[in-house]
């Protein structure tokens, strides 16, 4: 039996599962928007703007979910500054949760800046102060913000899996593939969300085709990484002989990856494939997290 079975569950459930999904989606959407900003064409601008908006809303929601989940929500800032020595910074480069707290904060800042830039571009900002900020975040500075924000976005999409691996819990700490898996899923769900939202912002057929083509590749990467994750668990895979295993197989692999791949291959309907990708991304977090959360140390020790 793996030594990880003798540990306690951290109760990362009803706020953290949605956070992992929304954070991954927001990070992935910003990453793709930044790539289109830096290497795309002017006709991709609606997708870029939708990506920044999505990222900003996602980052704010992520911060809110993380804060609400704390046992002492008003002490959320203890993760950023030393409470007894303010304003000395609190940061542990070797602790993903510490690294992640800063990454979420900075990602939120960059995505809000980019979203303001996008709204200024569309002429949707009325407030003079916000308009001044939005107008400043365009051109060269806008590209710099996108480049840094894109790196933060891809980090936010994947660090949550690393965070789970850097524990002592069953499944999570028994594989080093969760970070890569969540990252691929985050980028894939980001692309799916853009396929659903960008048409309302005026996205062209060519931009949507590129998103669909990229999402197909991202889903293949996700499937391969999921296979590597399962293979790395070895004999531990018996934990999947449960409801969570069924959810992983049918919900994530079947409806969340294979069916969208089939729909993408037929080119239509894009929205149906995107909705299934989002469902699969959420179920992936749900299954991997709750399968481990359900394993209780004292029950293992008592042979129950």
């Amino acid at each position, binding site marked *: 039996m793996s030594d990880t079975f003798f540990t*306690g569950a951290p109760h990362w459930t009803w706020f953290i599962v949605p956070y992992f999904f929304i954070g991954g989606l927001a990070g992935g959407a910003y*990453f793709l928007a930044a790539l289109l900003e830096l290497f795309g064409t002017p006709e991709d601008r609606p997708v870029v703007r939708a990506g920044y908006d999505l990222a900003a809303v996602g980052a704010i929601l992520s911060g809110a979910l993380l804060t609400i989940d704390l046992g002492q929500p008003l002490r959320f800032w*203890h*993760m950023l500054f030393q409470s007894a020595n303010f304003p000395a910074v609190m940061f542990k480069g070797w602790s993903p949760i510490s690294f992640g707290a800063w990454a979420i904060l900075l990602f939120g800042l960059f995505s809000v800046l980019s979203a303001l830039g996008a709204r200024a571009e569309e002429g949707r900002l009325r407030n003079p102060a916000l308009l001044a900020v939005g107008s400043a975040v365009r051109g060269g500075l806008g590209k710099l913000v996108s480049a840094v924000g894109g790196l933060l976005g891809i980090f936010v999409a*994947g660090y949550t899996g690393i965070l789970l*691996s*850097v524990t002592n819990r069953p499944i999570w700490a028994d594989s080093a593939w969760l*970070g890569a898996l969540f990252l691929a899923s985050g980028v894939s769900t980001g692309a799916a969300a853009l396929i659903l939202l960008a048409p309302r912002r005026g996205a062209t057929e060519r931009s949507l085709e590129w998103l669909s083509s990229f999402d197909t*590749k991202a889903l293949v990467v996700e499937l391969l990484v999921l296979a590597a994750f399962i293979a790395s668990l070895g004999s531990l895979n018996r934990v999947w002989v449960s409801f969570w295993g069924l959810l992983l197989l049918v919900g994530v692999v079947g409806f969340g990856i294979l069916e969208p791949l089939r729909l993408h291959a037929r080119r239509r309907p894009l929205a149906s494939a995107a909705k299934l990708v989002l469902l699969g991304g959420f179920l992936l977090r749900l299954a991997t997290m709750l399968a481990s959360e359900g394993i209780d140390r004292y029950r293992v020790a008592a042979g129950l």
Partner: protein
Amino acid sequence: MPEPMGFFTDTTVCIGCKACEVACKEWNQLPAANGGIGELSGDSYDNTRKLDGIHWRHVRFIEQFKAPYDGRWLMMSDVCKHCVQAGCLEVCPTGAIIRTEFDTVVIQSDVCNGCRACIAACPFGVIDINPVSGTAQKCTLCYDRLKVGLEPACSKACPTDSIQFGAITELRSRAQKRVDQLKAQGVQAELYGADPQGPLGGLNSFYLLVDKPEVYGLPRHPKLPSRNLGKSASFSAASAAVLGLLALVGLRKRRMEEVGHV
């Protein structure tokens, strides 16, 4: 600077009286579980069941009445191991978990924000949330008592000296003598966590066991959570690079097609 202090728990003389549990609860003013309403486990004479945020000591009953055993009770008073290399301290993002001058590991309740990273990082399942404070809590090895020269409440209350408190070096030599004595009597005794060259640099709360560690609910090779950091980060970076490359190749292909059409 005081020398490292800790516990040596000789499970062979534990009688399961739970005096240590009560003394710990009383001294640390820990609340009752379930609002004080008694709840029976239903499958064991032990109704505490596990260590958590309001049970910093737990006397584990191992009731061996199935094959290959023909009826045996093992008792072990479990507690935080105050690891020399502590996983909880490693991951804590607020700096709430500190190492004291006694080489023990303490959670500062006024700094902890209840993120629960330490719960998942502990290789022994020791830490949990105290619902009253909303923060992660565990044994402090009675840091407040140690500061004024008193021994921890649990070892003070232990009627059989199953829990012995003292300087780690002294406890290790005492424990080795006890193992030798038991072995001379034909008992298969072994120390768990006493070796400073062993897992986690040794445990400042170590045990004398007469069965496999797993039987007592202890991992055979406890590890630090950071063991996965490098590999997991590398796989993630590789995955990000592949996805970024695929996106760029797609954009380039689209541009080439555009040029072809013109």
